[in-house]
């Protein structure tokens, strides 16, 4: 079943939405704008009626999987339940219909919310201040590195040009380092613990300590393992004059249990769309606030929310600020949802979130271990990495095949082939909002798939079978990219 493109629907002259009436006297167009600057041909947008718009996008939605339809055992992305309450709060007219340049007097509630959210996030991460500007995690990373750069320059340490990044890090880490004009240097993982290889770190610091601007870590790391050496790592980096950056992608494991600031980190980003339950929206919007220790505060982008006897206001950044990292004030609509989430849970609730996420992950790890070797057979935190290495070697069934077969059973797939250091990796994060029944179903399906791999590998290798479409030709898509519809285009190729 295919849903044709909106461009293939409708007929000339059809329309859906009506425009406001033209209630002012009308002047000739070219009396206002020189003809040479006027549009010659109308944009060839669709010409469809309202019922066609409604059915088309309703059908598209029905061809899409979401948290509301099923389980996402997806590592490092914390696909938890997105409360409807959050959506309703963000839709309140006083939040949804305000302009970023309104006088402060007319947006006291909005500034108050951002003021308080900043303080909540600072408390959760043990940081001095937080900027809510960054739009997503990667944006936060880059902002954090900019702050570190500005800090080093202020100390006459502008030459520091290395950023240490573990070999199991998210791809955004090295990419962000490059964008901030740093050189990314890989730090090896310890085969046994999954944490930083302390020897390798020491070697690197001994050789290049004076060039190190920062280390970027997530803890628990992408293996779902908490690096017990974290305090020691912090001391080592600080000793050579470097800064510690905390990638908050895995913060769902630490709420109320441990705080990046207490671990020794100087900068931390949050992924509010992971940790604080705001929806992923099929890839965004997110929000990536960053918190910093006191010594980095002068460099924060401005403005920051502030409060005095007259009420809330925006305080412009000081002279050392790196400047704005985006227009306006941050992804407010997302921030309202995160604020709602924090107030709903309270301190005990947030801790219960992390404990429950950890329990669910360990439960899956334990129950799956007979069929899927865990990369590191240790108590994990909110996620763990299993490998399909054996099934591949023995039956030719890959992590991709298993992922695709899961779709047939009404679930999404784990993150696969990441982290890069684990062959046929399947990174599994159940989150705290899944029921035991849901986890048990996942376990039974994973066992079933292992059995299928052993007895009928072709079934798995050709999966999915029950989805609206089968595996797609990715190579063709990349070789002959078709990125937009053109009139007369029937099918791609």
């Amino acid at each position, binding site marked *: 079943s295919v849903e044709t493109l909106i461009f293939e629907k409708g007929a000339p002259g059809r329309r859906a939405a009506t425009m406001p009436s033209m209630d002012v006297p009308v002047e000739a167009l070219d009396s206002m704008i020189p003809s040479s600057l006027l549009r010659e041909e109308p944009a060839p947008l669709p010409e469809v009626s309202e019922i066609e718009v409604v059915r088309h996008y309703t059908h598209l939605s029905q061809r899409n999987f979401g948290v509301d339809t099923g389980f996402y055992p997806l590592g490092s992305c914390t696909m938890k339940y997105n409360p409807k309450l959050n959506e309703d709060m963000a839709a309140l007219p006083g939040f949804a219909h305000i302009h970023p340049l309104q006088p402060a007097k007319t947006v006291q509630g909005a500034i108050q919310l951002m003021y308080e959210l900043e303080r909540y996030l600072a408390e959760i991460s043990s940081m001095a201040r937080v900027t809510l500007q960054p739009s997503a995690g990667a944006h936060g990373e880059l902002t954090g590195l900019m702050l570190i750069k500005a800090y080093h320059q202020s100390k006459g340490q502008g030459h520091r040009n290395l950023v240490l990044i573990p070999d199991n890090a998210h791809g955004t880490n090295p990419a962000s380092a490059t964008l901030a004009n740093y050189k990314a240097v890989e730090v090896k993982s310890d085969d046994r613990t999954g944490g930083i290889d302390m020897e390798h770190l020491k070697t690197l610091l001994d050789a290049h300590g004076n060039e190190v601007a920062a280390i970027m870590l997530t803890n628990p790391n992408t293996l779902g393992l908490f690096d017990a050496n974290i305090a020691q790592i912090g001391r080592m980096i600080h000793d050579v004059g470097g800064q510690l950056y905390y990638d908050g992608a895995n913060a769902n494991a630490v709420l109320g249990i441990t705080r990046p600031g207490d671990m020794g980190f100087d900068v931390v980003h949050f992924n509010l769309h992971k940790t604080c339950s705001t929806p992923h929206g099929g890839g965004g919007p997110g929000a990536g606030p960053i918190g910093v220790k006191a010594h980095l505060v002068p460099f924060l982008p401005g403005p920051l929310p502030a409060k005095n006897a007259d009420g809330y206001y925006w305080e412009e950044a000081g002279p050392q600020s790196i400047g704005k990292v985006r227009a306006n004030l941050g992804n407010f609509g997302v921030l309202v949802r995160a604020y709602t989430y924090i*107030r709903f849970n309270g301190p005990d609730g947030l801790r219960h979130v992390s404990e429950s996420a950890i329990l669910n992950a360990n439960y899956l790890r334990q129950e799956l271990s007979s069929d899927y070797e865990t990369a590191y057979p240790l108590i994990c935190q909110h996620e763990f990495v299993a490998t399909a290495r054996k099934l591949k070697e023995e039956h030719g069934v890959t992590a991709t095949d298993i992922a695709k077969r899961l779709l047939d059973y009404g679930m999404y797939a784990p993150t696969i082939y990441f982290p890069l250091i684990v062959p046929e990796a399947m990174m599994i994060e159940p989150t705290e909002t899944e029921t035991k029944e849901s986890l048990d179903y996942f376990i039974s399906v994973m066992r079933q798939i292992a059995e299928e791999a052993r007895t009928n590998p072709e079934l798995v290798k050709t999966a999915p079978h029950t989805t609206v479409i089968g595996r797609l030709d990715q190579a063709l898509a990349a070789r002959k990219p078709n990125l937009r519809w053109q009139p007369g285009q029937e099918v791609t190729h």
Partner: protein
Amino acid sequence: MSYVPNTQEEQQAMLERLGLSSLEDLLTPVPAEVRLGDALDLPPALPEPDLKRLMSRMAAKNKSLETTISFLGAGTYDRAIPSVVPHLQNRSEFVTSYTPYQPEVSQGMLQAIYEFQTMVCQITGLDIANASLYDGSTALVEASLMALGPGGRGEIVISAGVDPQYRQVLHTYAFARGFSVKEIGLENGVTSLTDLKAAVDKNTAAVIVQQPNFFGRVEDMRAIEPIAHQGKTLFVSVITEPASLGVLAPPGDYNADIAVGEMMSLGNNMSYGAPALGFMAARQKFMRLLPGRLVGQTIEEGEQKQTGYVLTLQTREQHIRRERATSNICTNQSLLAVGATIFLAAIGKQGFQELGQLCLQKAHYAFRQITAIPGFEAAFNGPFFDEFVIKCPVSTSRMEQLFEQAGIIGGYPLAESYPGMDNHMLFCVTETRTKEDIDTLVSVLKEVQA
């Protein structure tokens, strides 16, 4: 108050399977020296009804533009959103979905983004577009980074007519990435062609001009283009008010290489300015240099060969290319792109033209009425779209007081971003303002005593 479904009894049963006796046992990997001793110092949990009351009161402290007349624009535009848009955009299968890495169960989102990419091309007149960027300002940065490329030219030339916030963001990135930025001054509210000509040289990677510019003035892009293109410099057009494309020549027509900007106003709530919807469109030849996600059409591997959609050219992206990636963007603005797609489908070919014309006519009506009031002068002389600058007879802070008393929100004071422009205000009139609204503004201005 918790969204954790499992009860204590169930959690205990799960712990038993693990051979553990308490949740605490799961935290052993976290060393004591970094453990948090106390509970977090946060306000206590609130049940949903109490929290709703608290949030509603907080929201009520903001003056919603649903019920307040406002003439603010300056990069963020109040737009009439057809009812169908939120009803469809907010379908939970879109809202709660992940990045569509598994295309077999994500065809809906993928197809919607493919349609978005196409519509961005249709309204900009360019060949290709990506799946969205954070906002207009970071889209401008991404275009600059594309133009700068790996090594090579090192300077971006940008008109002072580009949104001041966008230029601030560019400067921030210039500091971090290490490139230089040259700003070109304005004459009569538009980019000085003389200064621009003088500024572009072999080190110029891109010339960036906003259309209409921050003052709402229509730039003569056809005159700027040859200057920008001298010596293989890229010409980047910035668009913050997409409604203008219903009336004005699109970037493709005036030979821009890249168009970037902001499409939040197409179907998405203002929401205090964000989440926004940065877009980027470009000529075909830049395809493999585009930052961000791209959706491509392809066919099934199996026998049926159904048409389908996938994320493609991912080897450009950070999760594959890592430190060699040219952008670190990952999460983008998919759901807002879906909103814009539904909005553009709903208003359609005819509505998009009408939208531009409504903004243009209403703004010009307001301009004529305001400049007819003694003491209020047009700051510039020349074509504009739906924003214009007025020199007021009193200070802008005095103006804001008057607006407050009248219960409306007036224009945007310019002096902070454009030193020397004391008493200048930027007024915006979109299709959401009725003649009655405009006449209300005019009657407030008429009361002003110089």
